[in-house]
């Protein structure tokens, strides 16, 4: 019983303090699941599950929660607890933010803040793309060709799911 409680609390903490989403949450997750006092996973296990998260769909934090919950407790109930735990804080906080925003969006000070936030967020997106342009994602010239083709196709409004599947098939044929 105590194990389930600790699992829930750990992932609730990850959901509560994991700002930035995605890979920005990884250091915190590592601290909770592979660090003292829990040491639920070894560092090798942890790296493996990060890799699995990269090649399975959905948010990394959810993948991590489901996997650790199952592996540590040995049953589905454990993974339900961890997944609910990691979702609960953002759910509550974002509900409050959405409520506040939809009520006060016409406020002049909110509008002032958003006048720089709108272009600023584009910078955040660009940063995400830049940080992924590494040797892990771009292994050879074919990677660059896939990148360019998908970039153009996306501007031509071809559906992202189709582009993902076609790129995967290209990978199968190429490698």
């Amino acid at each position, binding site marked *: 019983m105590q194990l389930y409680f600790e699992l829930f609390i750990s992932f609730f903490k990850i959901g509560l303090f994991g700002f930035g989403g995605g890979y920005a949450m990884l250091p915190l997750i590592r601290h909770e699941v592979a660090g003292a006092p829990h040491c639920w996973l070894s560092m090798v296990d942890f790296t493996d599950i990060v890799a699995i998260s990269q090649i399975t769909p*959905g948010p990394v934090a959810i993948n991590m929660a489901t996997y650790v919950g199952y592996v540590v407790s040995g049953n589905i109930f454990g993974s339900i607890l961890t997944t609910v735990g990691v979702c609960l804080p*953002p*759910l509550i906080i*974002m509900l409050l933010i959405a409520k506040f925003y939809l009520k006060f969006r016409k406020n002049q000070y909110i509008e002032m803040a958003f006048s720089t936030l709108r272009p600023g967020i584009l910078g955040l997106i660009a940063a995400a793309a830049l940080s992924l342009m590494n040797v892990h994602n771009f292994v050879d010239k074919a990677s660059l060709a896939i990148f360019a*083709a998908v970039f153009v196709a*996306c501007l031509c409004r071809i559906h992202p799911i189709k582009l*993902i599947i076609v790129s995967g098939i290209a*990978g199968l044929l190429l490698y």
Partner: protein
Amino acid sequence: MHELWQLFRSFFRIGMFTLGGGYAMLPLIQNEVVDKRQWVDNKEFIELLALAQTSPGPMAVNAAVFVGYKRKSIVGSLVATLGITLPSFLIILIIAMYLVGFRENHYVESFFKGIRPAVVALIAAPLYSLGKAIKISWFGIVLAGSVATAIAFGGISPAIMVVAIALLGLAIGIIQKKRKAG
């Protein structure tokens, strides 16, 4: 009832077909909630991303909560959150139970070698349509460029960056207001 089902289905699709989490999920979220369903427009979409940055947790969950709440209040946000979570939950559960070694499979690895650069392109491409939607100024382009550089190469936390950008906007707004008054 019909719209709740649509919320669930749209966010289930987003959860099902996005790799890597974070901004890698952005083009598909934009495609579903802006282009296809028109639940929010492009301008609101950017504002939603800014708000999502100030809330902890996965960005996709925050996006689901926001869009769900805007359309169908609290029930809507619960349904959308369930939709975005369920695909990862089910897939990871199956992997954890049966397929621990599947990453070493040669075909799986080749498939993903093709996908990875595509994911980067899918993150970068919406910058164009979003920039057009907010009628970005030269000042905005310089600001976005500086933000991208500071985060990608300076290692500054996106959450702190968002707060700083909001304060900058407030400061500029208040100075302009005082000038007009004076």
